[in-house]
């Protein structure tokens, strides 16, 4: 007997999400048990079944979530663009006004 991890896709094209595991003597029975346990209500499009020993967890916080400012990698790190855009528009408007003044 061995543990098999089960991933379930709920919508066509959706992500396969970890939903649990089953204990089975081989892959064929693991797939059968996965069906029995994780898709009893027509709520699964597909299941992925993998031997648990084939799964490796990576949870090294120093690598995955280093204590550095990485907002330069995110769209929200650039909110300053709103103010920059406002200043450029104001400058262009002021220049247009000045030119109009000269024309008059």
């Amino acid at each position, binding site marked *: 007997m061995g543990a098999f991890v089960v991933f379930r896709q709920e919508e*066509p*094209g*959706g*992500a396969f999400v970890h939903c649990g595991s089953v204990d089975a003597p081989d892959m064929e029975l693991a797939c059968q048990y996965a069906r029995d346990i994780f898709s009893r209500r027509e709520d699964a499009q*597909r299941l992925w079944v993998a031997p648990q020993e084939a799964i490796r967890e990576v949870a090294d916080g120093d690598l995955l979530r280093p204590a550095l400012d*990485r907002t*330069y*990698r*995110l*769209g929200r*790190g*650039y909110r*300053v*663009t709103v103010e*920059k*855009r406002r*200043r*450029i*528009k104001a*400058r*262009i408007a002021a220049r247009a006004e000045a030119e109009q003044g000269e024309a008059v």
Partner: protein
Amino acid sequence: MRAQATGGGAAMTAILTEETRTETFRRDVADGGVIETSDWMPEEYRRRLIKFIEMHANSEIMGALPEGDWIGRAPSLKRKLALSAKIQDEVGHAQMLYRLVEDLGKPRPQIFADLTSGKSKFHNVFHYPTRSWADVGIIGWLVDGAAIISQSALLRSSYGPYTRVMKRICWEEAFHLKQGEDVCLTLAGGSALQREMLQDALTRWWEPLMMFHGPPTPPEQDGDLAWRIKTKPNDALRQEFLDRYVPQIWELGLTIPDPALKKDVQTGRWRYTEPDWSRLIAVVTGSGPASAQRLGFRRLTYEEGAWLRAVTMNA
């Protein structure tokens, strides 16, 4: 009908079955069905998927080169970090996409042989040189902006694994756009020299941008649309691009080098000078201003990395 003409017996049954299956498949994807890697698929669908995703992946990895030239010349540490992060993303996108192509049956050495020999293609915009820091801004803001428009449409593609990868890619592209926009806005709000530099970059990039979404192929003649590998015709994507970005560009006081560019108030569609599509073909088949240099560099790094692949992958 063709099946009856080609012969009888088992062969005929096989052909009929293939045709019936293909017809059912075609109806399924047209109705919004989603295909997974392990599903049966017609050869034409597989061939088109491979070509389409491979071209996308090639563009991501080749797209790292024009901007890579500017990491060492970025004007501040923050800009250098952001640009390196963006390029790292692009290479990551190529990795994700090449895996899809491999799962569909084309091995990576073949993919790279076809890329470096010029047999397979990558996007027109990566065949051009980057002449100033403003080019980095224009690429991030407008090239990635144009890419986001076609990539968002791929979120509803008929190939499930592609749509899942596209979710990740689109999310990261949103940062690319903002970093490019911030570079452009800084230049637009800067000295006369900086504004001139930005205008020069826009002037040079406008034609490649107008060609980015491809020639106006009638939707009924576009096989990738019929199989719902992509979901919007080239021209619709270009209109969306113009709608979103032309007003923003004008707002910055910049001039777009196309006197015919104008929104038709009656139809709501943008009118513009039709790009010379034969030039697009020439550029993507290896006659672009930087095609030879880029492919040469990619070939060199692939050859120089051979020992590492041999060691790490036992290949």
